[in-house]
């Protein structure tokens, strides 16, 4: 054990004892305990650890910089008034400048100032040594003794020896503090996560969580104030009780102050002030001495361009009232760190000290950044979850509404010749349930003879019935206008279109002058765009992110109704097949839609199993979509029209992704007791070295899902359906689906692609199947100039179905 023996009258110092005292002290008092032990060991009056502030320029002439109290042990109440020293005119500053220790036993005879002595009037001796902390910042440890108690060279020797271990000890103490705080914050957030069980916490529950975090931070950093501001647009609007969203950005989520903070909402970009600066710039701000803010404007302007403080402190009456200044003391040192994810600022955590030691160190800043990162991660997750929850609810409403619409359409179809205008009006009636921002909604169809758009249905909560007659008369051009109207653009591109600011669109004002933004979605079937679904909002809130997709889906659904109505009329012509085909199609269509609705309800009712229910909803919707698409194709082929192709260049990854999704959805709908698994061999596609294939994506997806559905229906229990890519002997690209199950007999191979054919075994092993699946796949492949091959393999009960694409449709990786 190393001993440092002091001069006469001094206690022997054991480094080990110093270490023990420092590390055994309570969590926040390690540094103080270390200084107290040094004071006792040296029989000094007091001791201060000064740190040179970042940004100081010791090379300047004269040197520029200040020392701040990092920690102290002085038994004088008044000492808290001391905050900083000039580096060039103080003992401790000179120690850092010269990087050598200093003893002066007669302060009154020295030209140097050390304002400490103006408070410690009975002291006149100082021993100070330079210390380099572990993060390379410079500090000075200064000991003070009463008049008549001089420091000796022996004291200098001892303290210099001590100085070697102090940075290590300080670092150890800091590490402990850091891990303690981070651990505590993490635990608070983890507990909140466990409590929430993946469901949204209420606003008050969240506030409680963040209050705990502020308390942790305040305890660890000895803060007078620790406050958390967070971006929370949706809940702020509720919390602010009707305040316009546009004026609210960041809300005070929690604070350690007992009284309300005057300024608890920040706009971020349009205000002055330190917190606003942090929220706007997304950078931390660290002001050492707010009392001298104006004097320090030079360096503050350099380090924090644009930062202003005077708004809140220059006004003296306000200063006196400012709750931050509780008990009449104003904050002297402020640290504010942004809470960010990427370049998105979610909020800010702010600390201030109104009691000594005032100074926040660079380690405090780093620690606060760690806390901010934890909060950012958590808040981002919660915001994301809420967004997802909102979106999920919207999807559930969509499924419910489409289900109701389906019932309506079903009844309309049953009643005979369907009135499509009534169907469209019914669809609009559901729209504002799905998209609450949809205020003025209409369906406009293309007049085939004039190519003009006319209104066939209109409604919405802001729709004025007085306008109905006027709007009904209105017709708009779809061609020839420059720039084209949004609707004309949608007719051309067949894609939905969002206009965030209607004032930029010259044609909107005629009918709906109050509309601020709109979504135009195509109403289309496979061949044509029949018209557009026009959704307009008059409020300040933007459309939610998923609104465009929802509008597109509803537009497609309306297109499907149109096609369905046409199809049913065509199908009814064939009386012989009507009963069975319709019963089967009805069964295939109603089953999944009913179940999707039920699953959607269960997702709302059964907390914790939403994901499995929503997955099932997705699979069931895909099945319904497949049935309706089959019906469309059946109608087209029945009327001897060629299948129109909408070729896109499909890359390898998109193809594999589609196959995987289709496999997952098919597997999801098979009785798990049969244990049939689907396996997409993605490597086999990569091995073909094919880059992209030119196909109609929707049709290819339809063909794949038809084949996978068959494989699922006819596979034996406990088998795997393999899907892989490859090349034929002629080098043509092929997708193969291989399963072990009921085989098509060789004599049936030719017939199995004919319409309404069903194998004998198939008839008794599946309850559904209209016998159009393979017939449609065959036509889809022929439309692509490709080929459908069905071949029993040499192994027993194995069947391979191959989709072969022509060489022209495939491009190789160079």
């Amino acid at each position, binding site marked *: 054990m190393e001993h440092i023996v002091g001069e006469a009258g001094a206690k022997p110092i054991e480094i080990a004892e110093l270490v023990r005292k420092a590390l055994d002290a309570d969590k926040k008092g390690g540094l103080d305990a270390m200084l107290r032990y040094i004071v006792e060991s040296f029989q000094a009056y007091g001791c201060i650890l000064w740190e040179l502030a970042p940004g100081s320029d010791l090379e300047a002439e004269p040197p520029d910089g200040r020392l701040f109290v990092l920690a102290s042990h002085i038994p004088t109440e008044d000492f808290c008034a001391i905050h900083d020293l000039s580096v060039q005119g103080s003992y401790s500053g000179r120690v850092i400048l010269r990087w050598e220790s200093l003893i002066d036993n007669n302060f009154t005879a020295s030209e140097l100032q050390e304002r400490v002595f103006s408070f410690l009037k009975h002291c006149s001796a100082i021993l100070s040594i330079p210390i380099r902390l572990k993060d390379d910042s410079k500090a000075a440890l200064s000991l003070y003794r009463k008049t008549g108690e001089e420091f000796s060279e022996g004291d200098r020797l001892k303290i210099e020896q001590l100085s070697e271990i102090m940075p290590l000890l300080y670092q150890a103490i800091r590490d402990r503090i850091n891990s303690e705080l981070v651990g505590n914050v993490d635990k608070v957030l983890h507990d909140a996560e466990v409590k929430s069980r993946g469901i949204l916490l209420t606003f008050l529950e969240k506030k409680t969580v963040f209050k705990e975090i502020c308390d942790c931070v305040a305890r660890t950093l000895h803060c007078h104030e620790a406050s958390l501001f967070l971006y929370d647009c949706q809940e702020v609007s509720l919390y602010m009780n009707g305040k316009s969203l546009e004026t609210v950005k960041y809300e005070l989520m929690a604070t350690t102050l007992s009284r309300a903070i005057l300024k608890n909402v920040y706009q971020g970009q349009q205000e002055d002030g330190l917190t606003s600066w942090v929220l706007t710039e997304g950078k931390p701000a660290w002001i050492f001495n707010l009392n001298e803010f104006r004097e320090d404007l030079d360096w503050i302007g350099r380090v924090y361009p644009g930062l202003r403080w005077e708004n809140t402190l220059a006004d003296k009456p306000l200063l006196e009232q400012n709750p931050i200044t509780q008990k009449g003391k104003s904050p002297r040192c402020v640290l504010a760190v942004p809470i960010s994810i990427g370049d998105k600022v979610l909020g800010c955590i702010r600390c201030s000290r109104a009691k000594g030691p005032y100074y926040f160190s660079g380690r405090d800043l780093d620690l606060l950044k760690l806390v901010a990162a934890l909060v950012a991660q958590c808040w981002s997750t919660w915001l994301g979850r809420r967004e997802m929850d909102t979106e999920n609810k919207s999807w559930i409403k969509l499924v419910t509404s489409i*289900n109701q619409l389906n*019932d309506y359409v079903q009844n309309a179809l049953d009643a005979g010749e369907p009135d499509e205008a009534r169907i469209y009006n019914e669809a609009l009636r559901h729209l504002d349930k799905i998209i609450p921002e949809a205020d003025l909604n209409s369906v406009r169809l293309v007049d085939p003879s004039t190519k003009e758009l006319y209104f066939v249905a209109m409604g919405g909560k802001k729709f004025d019935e007085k306008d109905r007659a006027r709007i009904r008369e209105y017709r708009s051009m779809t061609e020839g206008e420059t720039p084209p109207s949004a609707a004309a653009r949608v007719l051309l591109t067949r894609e939905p279109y969002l206009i965030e600011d209607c004032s930029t669109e010259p044609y909107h004002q005629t009918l709906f002058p109050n509309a601020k933004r709109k979504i135009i979605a195509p109403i289309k079937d496979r061949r044509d765009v029949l018209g557009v679904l026009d959704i307009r909002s008059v409020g300040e809130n933007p459309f939610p992110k998923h609104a465009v997709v929802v509008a597109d889906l509803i537009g497609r659904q309306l297109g499907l109704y149109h096609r369905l109505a046409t199809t049913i009329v065509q199908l009814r012509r064939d009386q012989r097949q009507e*009963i*069975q085909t*319709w*019963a*089967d199609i*009805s*069964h295939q269509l*109603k*089953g999944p*839609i*009913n*179940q*999707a*609705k*039920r*699953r959607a*309800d*269960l997702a709302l009712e059964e907390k914790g199993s939403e994901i499995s229910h929503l997955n*099932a909803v997705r699979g*069931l919707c895909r099945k319904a979509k497949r049935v309706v698409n089959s019906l469309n194709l059946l109608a087209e082929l029945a009327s001897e029209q060629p299948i129109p192709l909408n070729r896109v260049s499909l890359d390898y990854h998109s193809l594999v992704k589609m196959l995987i999704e289709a496999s997952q959805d098919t597997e999801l*709908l*098979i*009785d*798990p*007791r*049969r244990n049939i698994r689907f396996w997409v061999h993605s490597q086999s596609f990569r091995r073909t070295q094919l880059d992209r294939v030119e196909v109609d994506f929707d049709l290819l997806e339809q063909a794949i899902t038809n084949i996978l559905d068959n494989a699922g*229906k*006819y*596979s*034996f*229990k406990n088998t795997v359906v393999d899907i892989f890519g490859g090349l034929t002997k002629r080098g043509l690209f092929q997708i193969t689906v291989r399963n072990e*199950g*009921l085989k098509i007999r060789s004599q049936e191979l030719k017939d199995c692609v004919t319409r309404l054919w*069903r194998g*004998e*075994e198939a*008839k*008794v*092993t*599946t*309850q*559904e199947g209209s016998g159009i699946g393979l017939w449609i796949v065959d036509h889809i492949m022929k439309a692509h100039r490709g080929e459908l091959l069905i071949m029993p393999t040499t192994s*027993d*009960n194995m069947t391979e179905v191959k989709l072969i694409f022509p060489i022209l449709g495939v491009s190789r990786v160079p």
Partner: protein
Amino acid sequence: MKILLVEDDYIQEQAIVTAIKKKFPDIQVSTICTELEFREKIDETLKNPPDMVILDVMIRWTDPGPGLDLESIPAEVLEGGAYRAGLRCERIWEDRLPRTPIVFYSVLEEKDMKSEFPNRPRVYRLSKNSDPTALLKKIQDWKDKLPVVHQNSL
């Protein structure tokens, strides 16, 4: 009370069983998912018969399997396929235990089945949609009619 559910779509089966169990935790529900299974198990089932049978109309004969022998399948099944399997099951049940209430629970409408739907007492038809309320009400009605078994009467 015991219910036998004959339903070959496991998603539908799950939904129905869940709805029943949620409303009537004390009801035992046993399930059968193919017509062949129904026929094979009927003797065993009748030893401890259910108080109600819920039947889908379109039910497959059996699961695909390596030993499927078409010649062993009754001619009416080969001819009618899955489309009217539920009606066949009902006839078999009717011959054996005619007093059991039977509920046809199907997405098929009455008009889809036309004259094939049995015109007998205690045979009901309910439209299978996303809302199980009608089915649950039917069960409740029948449950209310069942005699209460008191402990001291055992």
